[in-house]
């Protein structure tokens, strides 16, 4: 066993330990330090590879990459993490595709069918992940409209394109030396990534980010097969498994299948169903309150459950929320946070934002743990969450979101909702929660409302 192979073995062990330590917030940082150590060992070991004859491009790339990484890691605000993660999926996939292209460029004349298949698959999956992730990042960042963009026959176009790519890949396997086939696959895959994400709305991004995470891992593993590099096969498999688990969990939390997310164009279709459904419901007026009036409720409350959603991230209300909660806690009111798995724009989005606002993670509760507590809560305070609180998912069989696991906010004794306007949530479904007897809405920017309440509560105290 050569020195390089020993280095790779050691770093594989360190990566696996690193991921294992991620199972608890207590040990997670230590785990990442182990993984970082493993990464350094692998990189340093590689530099001694006998095949390397020039260090010019390597050092250039390492230096440039390090410089470019600083702005998107040190200074990126936590609210922009989802698009930051999507961007790095794009970067990883681009690297794998480029190496695939370089290898094909060099060996195309002498490739056997199996290696042609591996390179073809790598470039196909890598390129579509690259453009797809760029689209995700652009949608999350607001450069592109967050709403799904659909047109007639879209699924037909996408499926045809995909079938064409697979056909060409098969053709490449049979005729490995045919350059045109290879570069057509490359072009079509880049295009397909764009088409794939175009009809997907921002609310479905938790699933899509996770899927591209899985693809990225898969591409990395295929690259490992191509270069016969075992450490890449192992990490690719780990990364791929992580992405697939996350996408499965996200889909389960929305009661939808992956195919439905990719082909369904959720926001669009439901917007039309909502129109015929909401007619009768809108006659019932909702009750609204000002922030000052809402404070009176909290004076008598003993236990409060806060339900954050994407609206909290959008209005950056997490710091104001924590201030208000601190005031409540100082009056011995029991406050817990209920986190729905798909609240926000990526898996775990709410947890990170609340952690940033110095909310201890011991106050954050997952859906299954907190749901039995809603009936005992005096107040459920909903901050910018909508669909994940809609009781229709439990009660109305005809509702498009029927069957989706939700937070049982409606069972709390009183429900207060911070909401910008009466616009329905992303799925476009009217939320019956707002029409309930025990629900009051506070119309304003969530951050303004919570700051006012935090200030007002102090005055009362």
């Amino acid at each position, binding site marked *: 066993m050569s020195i390089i192979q020993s280095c790779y073995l050691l770093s594989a062990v360190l990566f696996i330990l690193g991921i294992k330590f991620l199972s608890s917030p207590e040990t997670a940082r230590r785990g990442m330090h182990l993984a970082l150590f493993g990464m350094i060992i692998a*990189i340093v070991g590689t*530099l001694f590879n006998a095949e*390397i004859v020039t260090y010019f491009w390597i050092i250039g*790339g390492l230096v440039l990459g390090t410089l470019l990484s600083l702005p998107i890691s040190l200074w990126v605000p936590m609210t922009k*993490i989802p698009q930051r993660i999507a961007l790095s999926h794009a970067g990883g996939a681009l690297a794998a595709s480029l190496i695939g292209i370089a290898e094909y460029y060099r060996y195309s004349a002498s490739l056997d069918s199996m290696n042609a298949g591996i390179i073809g698959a790598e470039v196909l999956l890598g390129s579509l992940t690259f453009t797809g992730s760029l689209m995700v990042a652009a949608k999350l960042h607001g450069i592109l409209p967050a709403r799904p963009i659909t047109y007639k026959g879209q699924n037909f176009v996408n499926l045809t394109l995909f079938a064409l790519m697979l056909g060409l890949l098969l053709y490449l396997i049979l005729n490995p030396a045919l350059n045109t086939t290879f570069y057509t696959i490359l072009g079509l895959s880049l295009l397909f990534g764009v088409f794939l994400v175009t009809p997907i709305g921002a609310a479905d991004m938790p699933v899509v980010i996770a899927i591209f995470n899985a693809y990225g891992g898969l591409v990395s593993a295929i690259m490992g097969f191509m270069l016969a590099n075992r450490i890449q096969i192992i990490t690719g498999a*780990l990364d791929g498994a992580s992405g697939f688990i996350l996408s499965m969990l996200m889909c389960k939390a929305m009661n939808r299948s992956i195919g439905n997310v990719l082909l369904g164009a959720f926001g669009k279709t439901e917007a039309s169903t909502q129109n015929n459904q909401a007619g009768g419901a809108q006659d019932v007026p909702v009750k609204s309150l000002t922030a000052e009036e809402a404070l009176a409720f909290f004076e008598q409350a003993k236990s409060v459950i806060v339900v954050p959603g994407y609206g909290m991230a959008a209005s950056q209300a997490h710091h104001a929320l924590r201030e208000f909660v601190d005031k409540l806690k100082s009056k011995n009111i029991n406050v817990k946070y209920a986190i729905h798995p798909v609240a926000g724009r*990526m898996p*775990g989005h709410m947890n990170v934002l609340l952690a940033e606002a110095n909310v201890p993670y011991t106050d954050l509760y997952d859906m299954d743990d907190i749901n039995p507590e809603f009936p005992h809560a005096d107040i459920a305070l909903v901050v910018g969450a909508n669909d994940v609180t809609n009781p229709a998912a439990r009660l109305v069989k005809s509702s498009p979101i029927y069957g989706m696991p939700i937070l049982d906010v409606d069972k709390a004794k009183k429900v207060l909702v911070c909401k910008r306007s009466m616009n329905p949530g992303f799925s476009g479904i009217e939320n019956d929660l707002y029409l309930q007897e025990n629900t009051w809405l506070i119309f304003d920017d969530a951050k303004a409302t919570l700051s006012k309440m935090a200030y007002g509560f102090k005055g009362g105290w």
Partner: protein
Amino acid sequence: MTNVLGISDVYLFILAGFLGFQLILRIPPLLHTPLMAATNAISGIALVGSIVIAGQNYSLVTNLLAFIAVTCSTINVVGGFIITDRILKMFKKEGKKKP
């Protein structure tokens, strides 16, 4: 590319995949965002493959392609570890003072 794919590599992939499933199922939803950032950083291991290609002086085209690949993977490795640490640093238990 001079290498022939061995069946042991396929075993390796499948077993590592199973191990990944078992490990990652145990990670609480609380840490799903750092998990994504972490797997991002770790999958930057594509850097080692890119380095080898960039170091072989085959032609300017492959060198340039590999140079970009090294740059992208380095961004993922360095940026990924920094941001994961930044996120994990924020998770605190009750009672601990702000840093």
